[in-house]
Structure formats: structure tokens, C-alpha cells
């Protein structure tokens, strides 16, 4: 009740903004300083992100990971202008309104209690950004789920146990401790645990799903690059959690068929 009352009280402060007022606002000295600071921060943050972040992220070996990387950059660039507003106002005030000394500053600042236009603009922009994030998230979530709907997908049963991974190829009746996958072929992982909760993570493919005892969880991906990649456990699972890792060998379809037919031990396969 009091909240509503307070809201309506501020409503009285609403002022009409004409184009004239906007231009006179923009030409004010402090506003100009803040705009310059905003440009500085936007360019600096955007540039640093452009230069460094792509190199910091793990290499991509799937379309899913490509999406993870592009989502990261999209969200980064979206947040740069917003963060730059915060930093620009901070910078402008620190550079131009600083008061040093042990006594409080003189009490001669404008007593601005609120500004309805600022409130509205702020809420509208943050809501719009929020909608953008949500739509983006739902769209890409659907795209990364594509391999799980593929009719011709290979199925691999993944079992986590303290502190090793075991991979079972049901079609070939094969159990291995390192993962072999054919390139450009959708694969569905059916994941479970023999003991505590683990998390099955193929770093360069951007997929991760918990391995639970007594439940089968699923994730899917289409590897699109030949090479050796990393499987790590991403859920603290006891003593040797840090060492619960193995490798994924993504190989050509021909090599994969050869490997499936090969009855020898996994270790004989040359590291590709």
C-alpha cells in the first residue's frame, strides 16, 4: 500500500521532454564529459574483448561449441555499452567532482531526488536487453539440441565411476576407456554413474551433463573436427576428481569403422 502511494507521489515529478531539451541536455559540459568517457570505455572494453576472449576460450570441435563461443561474444558485446554507462558516470564524477580533505564537501549540489525520464529509460532498456537474452537463449538452445533429434545418431553409453570413465558402444559390443567418434556424425551420449554424481564434459565440444546413479541422462553433439579432445569430470566426486579425465579421438568415418572392427585393445590405436 505504502509502496503504491510512494510510486504515485513520484509520478508528479514527471516532466515532458521535448527535442529541444534533449539537445540542450546533450550539450551540457558534464554530459559531454560523460559521453567521452563512455566512448573511451566502450571502445576499450569492446577492443580488449575482441582481441583476447577468442584466444582464451577452448578450441571448437563442434557446432555446439561454435555457438557457445558466439553466444559468449554476443553477450559480451551487448553488455559492453551497459557496463560503459556505469564506468562512464563513475569516471566523469571521479575526474571532475572530486573533493579531498577531512571535512565534508560543501552542501551545494542539486537536490535531485529522482528523474522519471531516467527511470523509464533505464527500465525500458534493461527490459529490452532481457528479452533479447531470453530469445537468443531459447533459439540457440534449440539449435544445440539438433544432434539429439538426428535419426542416424550413434549411441554411446557413458559410465562414470570414482574416478574413471567407461564408454560402451552397444552396436559393436565394445567397452573402452577412451572415446572414439566419427567426424560429422551425430552422437547421443546416455550417461550414468556407478557411485556418486559426476559430470561428463567434452571441453572442446561445449557439452556437459551430470552422471547420476540410477538415472540415465542424455546429451548429444556432432563433432566436426578430426583431432584429440578432452573429457573432464566437472562435478566434485571425491578424492581423485581432478584426475578423472580422458580423451576423445575424433576420426574419419573410415578410421572409425576400422576401429570398431578391431578387436584389439584401445591402447594399440595410434594417437591421432
Amino acid at each position, binding site marked *: 500500500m505504502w509502496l503504491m502511494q510512494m510510486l504515485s507521489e513520484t509520478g508528479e515529478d514527471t516532466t515532458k521532454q521535448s527535442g529541444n531539451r534533449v539537445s540542450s541536455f546533450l550539450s551540457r559540459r558534464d554530459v559531454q564529459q560523460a559521453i567521452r568517457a563512455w566512448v573511451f570505455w566502450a571502445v576499450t572494453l569492446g577492443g580488449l574483448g575482441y582481441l583476447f576472449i577468442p584466444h582464451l576460450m577452448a578450441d571448437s570441435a563442434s557446432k555446439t561449441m561454435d555457438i557457445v563461443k558466439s553466444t559468449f561474444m554476443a553477450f559480451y558485446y551487448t553488455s559492453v555499452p551497459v557496463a560503459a554507462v556505469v564506468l562512464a558516470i563513475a569516471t566523469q564524477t571521479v575526474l571532475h567532482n572530486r573533493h579531498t580533505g577531512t571535512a565534508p564537501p560543501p552542501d551545494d549540489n542539486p537536490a535531485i531526488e529522482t528523474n522519471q525520464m531516467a527511470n523509464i529509460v533505464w527500465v525500458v532498456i*534493461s527490459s529490452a536487453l532481457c528479452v533479447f537474452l531470453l530469445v537468443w537463449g531459447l533459439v540457440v538452445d534449440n539449435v544445440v539440441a539438433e544432434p539429439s533429434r538426428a535419426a542416424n545418431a550413434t549411441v554411446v553409453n557413458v559410465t562414470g565411476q570414482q574416478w574413471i570413465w567407461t564408454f560402451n558402444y552397444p552396436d559393436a559390443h565394445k567397452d573402452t576407456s577412451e572415446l572414439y567418434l566419427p567426424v560429422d556424425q551425430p552422437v547421443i551420449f546416455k550417461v550414468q554413474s556407478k557411485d556418486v554424481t559426476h559430470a561428463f564434459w567434452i571441453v572442446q565440444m561445449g557439452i556437459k551433463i551430470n552422471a547420476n546413479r540410477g538415472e540415465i541422462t542424455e546429451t548429444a553433439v556432432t563433432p566436426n573436427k578430426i583431432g584429440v579432445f578432452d573429457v573432464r569430470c566437472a562435478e566434485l566426486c571425491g578424492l581423485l576428481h*581432478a584426475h578423472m579425465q580422458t580423451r576423445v579421438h575424433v576420426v574419419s568415418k573410415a578410421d572409425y569403422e576400422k576401429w570398431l572392427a578391431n578387436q584389439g585393445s584401445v591402447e594399440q590405436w595410434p594417437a591421432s
Partner: protein
Amino acid sequence: MASELITEDRTRHSAKKSVGIIRHLNLGTAVIVGALLAVTVNRIATKLIIEGDETWRRHDQIVMATMLAWFIGFMIGIGALVGPTRWFFGKDLNHDEAMFLAGKDMGIKRYFRYTTDHKVVGIQYLILTIALFFIGGVLAMLIRTNLGHESGGLIPPQVYNSIVGFHGLIMIIATIIMITGPFGNFILPIMIGARDMAFPRLNALSFWLLISILPILAATIALGGIPMGWSGYNPLADQGPLGVDSYIFTIVIFAISSAVAGANITTTAMKMRARGMNWSRTPLFVFGTVASVALALPAFPVFMLSQVMSAMDRAFGANFFNPEFGGSAWLYENLFWIMGHPEVYVILIPAVVAIMEITPVFARKPLFSFNMAIVGIFGIVGLSIFVWAHHMYISGWAPLLNGPFMLTTELISIPTGLLFLVILGTIWRGSVWTRLPMLSVYALLFNFIIGGVTGIFLSDVPEDAALHGSMFVTAHFHYTLMGAGLTGALGALAYWFPKMTGRMLDEKLGRISFWLVQIGFTVTFFGMFAVGLEGQPRRVEAYDIIFKNGNLISTMGAYTIFIGMLILLAAVITSWRNGEIAGSNPWGAQTLEWMTPTPVPLENFEVLPVVTTNPYQYGIKQETSS
């Protein structure tokens, strides 16, 4: 009414005799009674509980019985039950006992008793918070030392995993109490013009409950540690050593303590505000503190329940969370995060409102959009109850719920944005009085924007599938809880230190510490973001050599933070003992705690104040506004 009590007290000098048993109870008797009862019960339990097939359950039962005995003995020994017992026999504490409990004329001794004066409790909380941060910080140094060593592996995994668990648990307790404990107790009642908290005895209870935990926590070291981390995930916790029982007890008692404190602070703020202090004249710190503890009220009992169930699993094979016999790990994860995400805001909101209290004073401008601040705070509180499963996107529990939880999580950025608007609107066109508290305002803005943005990355379901469980997450939540939370608490410390101790916090040492901590912080967690993006899992004692450089950078940053924190500790100790004497209102602030003398008298105010405006009447009123 309380001033009546004082005059009454002056007329009855001989009354001290009527102060009975509570005169003899203090921390010493609490430890003795607690230890005696613990040893006794331990003996009896060892005899009575027969060794069966499952010996591990027997040990869990004995350990739990012993801890329960310690806890009960300690609370009896400190005097927590004197009041209720008297009441049960139809005889409440008399006036002299009440004054004794308030710590009147008791000097330093009152800090070691069941003292009810909110100012004593505030100082007790402050010391406890500092001690917890010190221990948690040393543990962080051990973690970073291990990881700074090329590819880790310096500390054996069993010990390392426990260190990580302890660091998390202690820091979570410390950050939850760091503002509502010291400042919520000492400052808040004065800020609203009250003579004490609504329930002074509950206030003492909430503090001594926390103290009773400390030996239980320490016992963990002898009982095999808590190698499952502070989140206590089952079935891993079920598998853990007896130290897990310590963890369970710690959480249960902590939950009781925070419920007691929460009920007390909420009632105080609702019922005991000065005449004229309607809601639009109530300082934001009061709103924020109430929002925080009120949010904890539904959240922590859920956590407590999960631990009671976990204890039953361990001691009696109840199998709530044991999938082998029909239990569910997902159930535990849900219960944990139903507490776990509101808890982030339980920590953050008090930090932000403390900063909002500081900003107008040092910018000499009214708080910008008071109403928006309140909408922001309560928007966050409301939404934060519905976001918990974003911690479970990749758990496989209910993939269909990922979309809805992504929505609620991203919605929370709107009220959070309002908090930024309020702070930015206040400093815009204001002064920047560059004293210690104001430095924290800027540091919080800088860190909180990074913490917030990285949180948005993680709210995205496919992004989280890549980053979940990696060091990126660790860096993200340190940005929110430490970069924003702890920075806000340090600002609050610098701001209210003069009122609480009567002396100014050393500005020079404070500044050196500030820059070391903030630069060290940025270095530490940028290194951690980098290795997280590259694919280093969190909570690992050893790692692939490719993560070497990022970890080394993080470790160097962490040492810098630690040095900065030690300097701050030195500043606090030296300033408290012989710092510059502070006047009653060194910052020229307008909230009520600055209107009362320093040191604050036992009853806070000679005459209770009457409030006519909100406490942000700075600057010159004028027509134009922007």
C-alpha cells in the same frame, strides 16, 4: 519506558543480590558444561550403541550424540536457558537481571557473557566476522598456493578437498553475517531510533549459537574433514568421513541462528521505528537488511531440513538421497539450491544497501530514486525464490524446466539494474568526497557490473553447459560475493567504524589496503576467468599444464589480496586502540545513528527522536533536474 527503567535503577542500588545464577555464567562455564556433557554422552553412547554390521553408522550416531550434547551443554552454560526456565516457572527476569544481561557497568566482561545489549552483540559479531574471514582467507591462500605450483598437486587430494570445503563453508557463514551481524545489530536499532532490538535475548542467542558451532567445526579436522565441498552434495556426502557430521551440525545450528536473528531484525524494523519514521522516511539500509533476513527466513530452514535428512541417511540409513536404495541425488540438489540462490542475495543486498547509505553522504546529494531502490530490492527478493534450478541446467533433472528458469534468472537483471541506477543517479552531479567509504562505492560498481554480466553468460542454458563446473563459475561468484559483497561490507566498516569504536579508521593504511585488495582481486579473478574459459574444472587439486599461467597469475593476485587484508587488519586493530578520536558525526550524515553521542550510551538516546523527513536531505532544492 526504558528511561523509566534507568531512573528506577538509580533508586535501587542494593538490588544486585537478586541477580542469581546468570551472574556466574559466561563463555568459560559454557565451555566447561558443554565439554562435560559431551564427554559424558560420548561415554554413554559408546557403551549403549551396540556394534552391528554397519559400524560406520554406529560411529556417526556416537559423533552426532556427542555434538548434540556439546551444543546443549554450551547453551546451558552460557545462560541461554535461564530466562525461558524462569518463565516456565512463572517468574520472568527481574529488572536487575535485565540490566545485568544488558551488560550495564560490566566493562570488557560483557563481551564474554550472554549480553543482550545490541551494541555488544554487534561488536561480538564484528570480531567473529573478522576471525572467520581471517581463517577463510588463510585457507584461500593454501588453495592458491597449491594451484600456483605448476599444475598443482602440492597438497594431497584428501586434505585439499577438505580445505576447499572449509574455505567455502567458512566464507559463506562469514559473508552471510558480515553486514547484518555487526551493522544490523549495532547500527540498525539506533538508525531507526530504538533503544534496543525487539527481542534482546534472542539477539544474544543468535550470536552464541554461532559460537557454539566453532568447536564443532574445528573437530572436523580430527574427524576426517569435509572432502565433499561446502555444498555437501549427496551421495558424495553420504560416503564422506565423520567430519561430514560436523558439517551437518554446523549448518543446522547456523540455520537456527539466522532464523532467530532474522525474526528479531524483522520485528525490530517493523515495530520499533521512531515516531514519524514512516516507510518513506526509513533509511534504505533498514529495507535492505530486512529484505535480506526475511529472504533467509524461508531459505535456510530448507537447507536445515536437507541436512537433517542427510544426517538420517548417515546415521540410520534413511536413504533419502541414496539412489542405490531409492533415494534421489536430484532431491538434495533441489533442496540445496532452493536455499543456495536466495542466499546469494541474502549476502548481496545488505552490501548494496550499505553502499546506498554511504553514497548520499559522500556525494552530498539525496539518494536518487528511493522508490526505485525499494522496487529493486523487493524485485530481487521476489524473483530470487524462483531461480534456483539454473544451478541444475546440466543435472539432467528436468531439461524442460531449463527455459522457464532461464527466464526468471534473466528477469532478475532488471531489478538488479535498478540498484545500479540508484547509485549512479546519486553520484551523478554530486561531489566525490574521496574518503575510504566512498572508495568502496566505486569499487562495488566496478566489480558488481563484472559479476552481473558474467552471471548473465551463465544464465544462458547452452553457455552454461560449456562453463558450468569450471573455474569461470568460481570467478563469477567471487565477483558477486567478494567483489561486490565484501567490498560493500568493507565500505560499511570504514563508514560505521567511528560510531562503533569511537575512533576513525586509519585512512592511510586503509587506502593502501584498499588498492592492494582491489588490484589483487582483479588480477586473481581475471586469471581465473581465463582458465575457466579454457576449460579448467573447479575444485581440482591438480590440473593440465596448459592452465599453468592463468593459475600462477591468480595465485600472485591472491597473495596481494592477502597482504592488503593483513594491512586492513592492522589498521583496524591500531585504530581501535589509539586511532584519532571521532566526533559523534564525522561524516556529516543525517541518519539517526549519527545523532546520538559517541560512544553510544546504553539506552542509545537520551530522548527518543522524532523523524520528519527522509535522511537524505542534501544539496540545494531547485527546479531543473536531470
